Structure formats: C-alpha cells, structure tokens
C-alpha cells in the first residue's frame, strides 16, 4: 500500500532538521495555497467550503469538523477576532505536533494564515507546550522569516489581508491543552477551563470571537486548498478525510511519528513501526492516555479512523498509540496514568479535584498490595460520579482509563487484590520497561 504523506511530505525525519526554513518550504511548494487564494481572490466562503468538503476533522482529539467550526465565527463582527493554534501537546503518548513544528513550521503558519483569511481574523497566537522550548524559539524564527517575506503581517502579498501571528509559550500544565484553559492561559491567568456556553466562537480570547484548532488541523489546510477538498477526503475514508499523524510509543521497534491515511488497518501501522520489540502485544491505548485501552485482539481488528475506533469502544483522540506488551502490569500502568490526572487536574470542579485523587489513591493501594475486594466497585462508582459532571473533559479523561483497564483486565486487578502482588513477575516487568533506544537514534541534548 502506497502512502502519500501531505503533512510531512518530503521530510525524511533523519534529515528534516535542516529543512524547516522558509527556503526549504518554498522549495517544497510552500505558501502556494496562500498565494493562490490572494492572487485568484478566492472568497472566504469558498475557502471554508473547501475545508468542509474535505471532511477534515480536528486533530486535537475531539475530531470536530474544522470547516463547520470555522463557519461558526461571526462574519460581520466589528471588533477584533482571534485565531489560536493549539500546540500544547501534552496528552501522554502524543508528540506529533512537535514533528510538524520542528520540521514544517511554515506549513502551520500558512494554514493559520489561510484560516485567518477565511474567518476575517487579523491576529493569531500559537500556544506552544511548555517543555518544548526549542519549538518555541524555532517557531519565533519561522515567524520572523514569514513576516520578512510578507506571508504574515500587514497587507499580505500586496492584498488587503492583514494577519499578525505570535507565539505564546506554556510553562507546564496539561490542562492548557483544553481550548478554554488555553485561552485563559494566553490571557495571563491560571489555565482553568471556562464553562461553555458561551463558546469561543462568540466569547473567546479577551472575550472576542475566537477559533481554536490543533496544529495538525491547520497544517492540513494548504494541501486542501491546492488539491481540493474532495481529493483530501478521498485520501481517507468517508467522514474521516485525509491523512493523520500517529504518535507511536511503547513496545514497538521504532517509536515515532507516522503519517498514514485515515482508515489504515492497525496492523499496517504496527508493521511500519517495525512490529513489537520483544514480547507479544497485550494492549493498546489508541488515542492518547485519555482513550480507553483496548486489548490486543480488539485493536488488531480496527482501522485507524474516528469511526472504527469508536465502534471498538475507544477514541482515536489525538492519534497517540501507546503499545504495551505482556511484560506490562496493567495495575501499575493505570496507577501511573491516574497519577497524571490527579497531578494535572486544574482544581476548579469538585468531582475532578476530589475524584482524581481518590481514584489514584485506590489504584495505588491496589498496586501496593493493599487492595480490598470492594475497591473495583468503588472505582467504578467514583468514575461514574466524575464523568459528565465537570466543566471540561479532563474529568472524563481521568475516568475512562480506570473504567477500561478494570473492565478489560479485571482478572489482573482481582489477582492483585487477592494476592497482594502482580501476575507478571517483577523481573519481567523490569526487563520490559528497561531503557530502550530506537535503532538509528543517538542520545541528544
């Protein structure tokens, strides 16, 4: 099966480091879409229409149709409107936006410029995850290049279209990936999500109409404009247009970012990653840590698209595929994930603030041999009391791993509670989680 990459086209990851500059991007045909729009005076409505036709769904996790979202922005609004790019990638297992940003930042800039044009926005921000400082400095450099070349700024390419774009760096808070937490953070506050409604399209950054999309969503836009929405849709499958970046981590031979068409069978992706490292596949979290875990037999039958994964009882999410072999203790794995949500809860909603700690402490107890027979029912009940009762989806995100791990691997939890230890011998666990360096990768600082 031949795969046509469009996000990382021409970017062999091993050499890509040197090819991120404007000149390289231009050589790959960069900014042609923006030029085309301005030269041919394509109307904003037509741009939105093309994106709608492409069936491009938001790559940040929720999979909301991008064109539809863009059409929510008020057309004839007199004040400022904003465009925000979400590069706060912090969902455990997700690292695809990083590759876009370090190898292809101009494609993100071009995508944002086109989106700004389509929605009549003159100012944008790209919110970049705190721990990846080099991405921030690189993006600042790319912005300077784009500004100097007239792709952003005032009167872009001699037209009447103005668009200023800035980088805002985060400083370590997963919750800022949630779009309204992110807006609060840009406003210089704690990143505590806002209750919706009002939605950002009517009350966003600084209370002004705002559209937020994921980095990858924006990066797909230039190709759609140049090749047409239908073409993009055809790359994937109905209702799941285009290609998608998958961040593959865990027990595969070659962890990394892979671009494949929507609808690619999971085994194909696994094979691209060189297959399993040592042991047998035990389970996969297909869409980032918040997505329910799927046992090997179920995931092997899935194709990688929103609908198929949903049917299997999980979520495509951000396309973060965490692969686990049989050396993994599922209680320990869940303990680590639960700790993450406990640590990252922003603290405003009662169920999330109090419930994430409760979940973590119970799982921790079980892992440490102090589980009680009633614990599994308790966990289940606590997750029920969190889910759907919080402002943002972090509450659900904390609950879903607990529910799916205890559902699919119930016997392992029961064994733990009963025997006060794991089915998987400690040395096997240790060996399986040992330091592993991907072939052809060298330590770098």
């Amino acid at each position, binding site marked *: 099966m031949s795969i046509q990459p469009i996000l990382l086209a021409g970017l062999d990851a091993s050499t890509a480091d040197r090819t991120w500059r404007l000149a390289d991007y231009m050589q790959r045909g960069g900014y042609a879409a923006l030029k085309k729009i301005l030269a041919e005076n394509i109307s904003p409505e037509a741009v939105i229409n093309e994106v709608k036709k492409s069936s491009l769904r938001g790559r940040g996790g929720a999979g909301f149709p991008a064109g539809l979202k863009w059409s929510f922005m008020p057309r004839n609004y007199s004040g400022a409107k904003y465009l925000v790019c979400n590069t706060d990638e912090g969902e455990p297992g997700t690292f695809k936006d990083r590759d876009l940003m370090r190898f292809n930042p101009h494609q993100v800039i071009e995508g944002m410029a086109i989106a700004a044009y389509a929605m009549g926005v003159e100012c944008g921000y790209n919110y970049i995850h705190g721990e990846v400082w080099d991405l921030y400095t690189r993006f600042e450099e790319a912005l300077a290049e784009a500004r100097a070349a007239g792709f952003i700024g005032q009167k872009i390419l001699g037209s009447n279209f103005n668009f200023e774009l800035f980088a805002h760096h985060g400083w370590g808070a997963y919750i800022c990936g949630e779009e309204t937490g992110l807006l609060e953070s840009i406003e210089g506050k704690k990143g505590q999500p806002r209750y919706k409604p009002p939605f950002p399209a009517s009350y966003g950054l600084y209370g002004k109409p705002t559209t937020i999309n994921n980095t990858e969503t924006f990066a797909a836009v230039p190709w759609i404009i140049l090749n047409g929405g239908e073409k993009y849709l055809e790359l994937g499958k109905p209702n799941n247009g285009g290609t998608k970046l998958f961040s593959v981590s865990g027990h595969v031979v070659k962890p990394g970012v892979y671009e494949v068409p929507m609808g690619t069978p999971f085994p194909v992706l696994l094979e691209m990653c060189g297959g399993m490292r040592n042991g047998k596949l035990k389970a996969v979290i297909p869409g980032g840590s918040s997505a329910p875990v799927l046992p090997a037999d179920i995931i092997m039958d899935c194709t990688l698209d929103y609908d198929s994964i949903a049917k299997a009882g999980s979520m495509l999410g951000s396309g973060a595929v965490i692969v686990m072999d049989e050396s993994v203790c599922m209680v320990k794995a869940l303990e680590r994930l639960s700790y993450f949500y406990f640590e990252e809860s922003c603290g405003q909603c009662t169920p999330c603030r109090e419930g994430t700690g409760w979940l973590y402490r119970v799982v921790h107890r079980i892992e440490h041999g102090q589980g009680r027979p009633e614990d599994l029912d308790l966990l289940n009940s606590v997750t029920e009391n969190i889910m759907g009762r919080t402002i943002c989806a972090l509450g659900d995100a904390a609950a879903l791993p607990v529910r799916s791990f205890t559902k699919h691997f119930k016997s392992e939890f029961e064994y733990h509670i009963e025997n006060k230890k794991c089915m998987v011998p400690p040395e096997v666990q240790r060996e399986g989680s040992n330091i592993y360096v991907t072939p052809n*990768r060298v330590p*770098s*600082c």
Partner: protein
Amino acid sequence: MLSQDTLKKIDHEVAKYPADQKQSAVMAALAHAQDEKGWLAQETIACVAEYLGMAPMAAYEVASFYNMYDLAPVGKHKLTVCTNLPCALSGGVHVADYLKQKLGIDFNETTPDGMFTLKEGECMGVCGDAPVLLMNNKRMCSYMTPEAIDKLLDELKS
C-alpha cells in the same frame, strides 16, 4: 529588581498582545525572571506583577499553577525526568532511578553542593524520544542511556 536585559525580554513579550492586555505576558515574564534569578521568590513575583500592572496575587496564582516555575530555590541544574506511561515503557523510570542513585538524591531534592535538583515530570510531548529528561526547563535530552547521562553530568560539572 529585575535586570534591564530581563525587562527588555519582557517588553518583547508584552508587545505581542493588545495594549490593554499586558497581563498576557505574565507567563513569559515569570519565566524570564526565573531564568535570571534561578527561582521565583515572592519579591520577584511581586516585581513582575507590578511591571505588568496586575495584582501580586494574580501573578502568584500563575506562578503556582504551572509546573515549571520554581517557588523555592533549586540547584544550578534542574533535571526533570518524564516517568509517564509512554516514557516508562521505554525506560523512563530506570533513567530516574539511575539519576537518583548517581546523584544520591530523590525527586524534589537538591545535591548538597547545590549543583543538581531532580524532578519527576509529566508528559513533555516527546514520548517518541524516550527516555527523556529536561534540563533547566529548556534543554530537551532525548534517548537518554546511562552512558549519555554520565556524559551529560560530567559536562555540567565541569
């Protein structure tokens, strides 16, 4: 008081936002202030707040919300190891153990010579490079093996 250099960097950030939204620069300003001072003392936070025309408590909320601000002194080199699940599957915890043993400190501790502080990090968005550690909030170290760590520590000590 913050240095002219830091204030200049803060001004650069302030310029990105609408004139009446200086507070938007607070995260960057606190980060720059931390770079200069090593950590964020109460006076430093108050200073940043005053410079941006916001309530000190509002700045403190921010400083205490985001992970990478240090509200207490840290060693010259702060090493944050990601131990989240994806990293842990490829040795994150082993790397942390190696560092603990090598430096003789646990998480959230600083070596007696004030050189190193060890922190446990949450997902940094680079899971494919596991095991990883982040140095002083800005330098990402990928594919860290014990040998690579030895080399790094030697480099930092000299």
